[in-house]
């Protein structure tokens, strides 16, 4: 008897779709949720409750859509796209943030000189939603601008310009500019 942890994604997906196999789903969930959870937490600006809601909604929508999933992308990529949609629905009241990354407030410079992971996470969380999404998708998850454009419903050029502005904002939030000396990790 196996818990499914060694079975490939396609086999587990087939079992979920054709047999509604709970063990197969749990194997998929345990395999992919740690990355999905971190991804959702970053997109949700560090709000754990929002991140859990996004993970929950992502899996429900994914299982509903699995019968038509054509494997044109890897399963984690498909899940990330669903998660982005879930997050975007939460952005609607602040849709303008998708189009622009404003200058950070002066108070944000208080983060200067704290070059650790936590501060970088905080800085990412303080980016406007659209810029944050592009940084997470491109610089952390490795998606191309074309893929990001498809996920966010924007042009690839918009993704590039948002990324540029978001990186500048990140540097400001972290208290340094590109021409300044290296900051030890």
């Amino acid at each position, binding site marked *: 008897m196996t818990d499914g942890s060694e079975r490939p994604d396609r086999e587990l997906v087939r079992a*979920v779709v054709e047999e509604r196999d709970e063990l197969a789903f749990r194997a998929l969930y345990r395999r992919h949720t740690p990355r999905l959870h971190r991804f959702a937490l970053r997109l949700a600006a560090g709000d754990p409750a929002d991140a859990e809601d996004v993970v*929950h909604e992502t899996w429900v929508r994914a299982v509903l859509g699995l019968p038509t999933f054509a494997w044109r992308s890897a399963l984690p990529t498909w899940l990330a796209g669903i998660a982005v949609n879930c997050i975007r629905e939460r952005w609607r009241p602040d849709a303008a943030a998708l189009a622009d990354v404003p200058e950070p407030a002066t108070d944000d410079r208080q983060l200067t000189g704290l070059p650790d992971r936590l501060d970088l996470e905080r800085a990412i969380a303080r980016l406007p939603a659209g810029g944050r999404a592009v940084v997470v998708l491109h610089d952390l998850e490795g998606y191309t601008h074309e893929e990001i454009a498809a996920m966010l419903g924007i042009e690839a050029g918009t993704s590039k310009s948002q990324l540029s502005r978001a990186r500048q904002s990140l540097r400001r939030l972290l208290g*340094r500019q590109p021409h300044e000396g290296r900051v030890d990790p």
Partner: protein
Amino acid sequence: MIDDLDEPLARRLAALPRELAPPAALEERVVGSLRQRGLLGGRRSYLRWVGIAAAALVLFGGGMALGRGAGTRPVAPGLRQFMLLLYEGPGFDAGDSSVAAARVEEYREWARTLAHRQRLVAGEELGRPDWLLERNGSGVAVGPTGDHADLPTGFFIVAARDSADAVALAGSCPHLRHGGRVAVRAIRRT
């Protein structure tokens, strides 16, 4: 202007963790939602019905020689056929492996009783996954029945004098004892 990712920021981004263990309760929340929508839970039901189907083959092996298909099993003359549709709602107790054998025997005994009275025509599990087709504009949309989970998971066709008799037969179905529901529908010959 495209802002290139300078090395210090790139290194710091690369050092960020890519995974985070979710809280244990989240898995149960997700699984619970999927069960509620009828998207998970097929394995236990499937195994139970496989057992019942195997029992039915043993029961009706002789009867199968008389012919195949609904209406060809030996039933009492002058009776009408009714379909009993079995549903597993939220209150249904599917049981676990420890009670599976007893559950199969329970359904088997019920089917045997009906067969001996020449009241059983057929009984089958309904396949999974279930699909729902709906008119969508000028076309037809095909999707899983996740939002329409209250669909039958099996059926029996019984022979009965009338609706009241069919309801009485259905009332003895063990499915009811385990929280399931049984709909009685008259089969109208066309």
